[in-house]
């Protein structure tokens, strides 16, 4: 492992790394934020279908300036393009698709991911149930997609870990939801009640990651630097 200048990933680079972890022919759902950027990094030959909570099945890259169709948006209400072969359904049918387990992976943003695969992304405070929050489609996706990837900054703005032993915020889904976390400095597998470091950003070492990660962190035998 080389020790060069530390270069954390940009949001676009994180999206590109997410795209590298998609399988051929997968049906993919992208959450608001970094995940929706992923649509720009998917190679056509992967035969990926992107579907959005609002019932767009088969969208493509973000629409270029001046080329927006104001009736074509993704889950983040960003203007996107429709791929050939797209289909539109209503909101209930869209979640019928999600709940039926046909989504291979949903990539979501989060505040915290715990070693048991639980994660938190709908409440910014640890307060009792009071009707407040921003759930969107996350709970349906977390409960029903075959896998959940989380794309998020590795730490809070104050430097506190977001990969934790136990979520401090109310969870979006209990244990077993998240399988992979892509951060600005690492790619971490979540399985068997622990984190496993698989990739680091250019210039980062195991120890760099360990210092900002809470909870058990194993090192993958195939640990390598990200190609971004």
């Amino acid at each position, binding site marked *: 492992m080389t020790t060069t200048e530390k270069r954390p990933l940009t949001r676009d680079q994180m999206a590109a790394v997410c795209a590298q972890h998609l399988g051929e022919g997968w049906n993919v759902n992208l959450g608001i934020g970094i995940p929706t950027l992923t649509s720009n990094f998917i190679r056509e030959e992967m035969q990926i279908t992107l579907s959005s909570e609002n019932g767009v099945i088969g969208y493509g890259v973000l629409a270029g300036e001046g080329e927006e169709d104001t*009736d074509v948006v993704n889950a983040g*209400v960003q203007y996107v393009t429709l791929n050939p072969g797209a289909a*539109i359904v*209503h909101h209930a049918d869209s979640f019928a698709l999600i*709940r039926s387990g046909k989504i291979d992976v949903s990539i979501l943003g989060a505040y915290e991911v715990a070693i048991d695969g639980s994660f938190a992304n709908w409440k910014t405070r640890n307060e009792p149930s009071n009707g407040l929050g921003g759930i969107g489609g996350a709970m349906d996706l977390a409960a029903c997609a075959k896998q959940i990837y989380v794309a998020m900054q590795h730490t809070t703005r104050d430097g506190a870990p977001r990969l934790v032993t136990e979520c401090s915020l109310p969870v979006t889904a209990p244990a077993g939801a998240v399988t992979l976390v892509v951060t600005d400095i690492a790619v971490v597998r979540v399985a068997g009640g622990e984190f496993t470091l698989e990739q680091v950003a250019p210039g980062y070492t195991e120890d760099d990651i360990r210092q900002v990660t809470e909870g058990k962190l194993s090192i993958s035998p195939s640990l390598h630097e990200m190609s971004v």
Partner: protein
Amino acid sequence: MKPPIIYDTMAEAVDDFADGSSLMIPGFGPGTPWNLMRALYHQGATDLITISNGIGFGTDPELVNAGNFISDGRVKEVIAAFTASTHPSSVSAGEELIRAGKLKAEIVPQGTLAERIRAGGSGIPGFYTPAGIGTQVAEGKEVRSFNGRDYLLETALTADYTFIRAWKADKAGNLIYRRAARNFNPIMAMAATTTIVEVEQPIVEIGELDPDHIHTPGVYVQRLVKIPEDGTFVVRRPV
């Protein structure tokens, strides 16, 4: 069925809207009934229960959403998938009112919200869903196991009114939506007692729409009104 009444203006279409009513508001960016919402805002309706994906910030007087009514204290209860921002720095009037205990709020996973509305329009009083199991959303709800997996019992939602945003309509009330503007529109149109529709294109004669292309059969529609040339046609920016 009696064909829907076609109104000349948005104001006339919402004129008799009663205080205290429940209102389903579709839209996910596109598909929002901006013109009817603005007309209702001016009509003065208050004491509302709103059912919508998000409660909105309500800062734009031209793009009226639930937030405009909330900011004015004209909403008594909200049911939504987003009642608070996901960024701690941007707090809406609604979020503040809810936290202060001044606005009743129910937060619902989006798929559960959609299915509860679809159930409400389908004579299904309750159903089971896996979304929310093991979270705060499950508090106070029945958990039941089917084939070894836990599910939550969720109940149907209906409303007194819904405002619908359609692309095309005929005089029988048959509706067609365009692209992602469809979203909550077809299911909310089924779930309300009075369904009022704002239409982008000129309302066509009965028989001009292909029966295979109809997204909302006219049997669900009570009122139609064409969006005027100076009305709000598009989401002019992501919201």
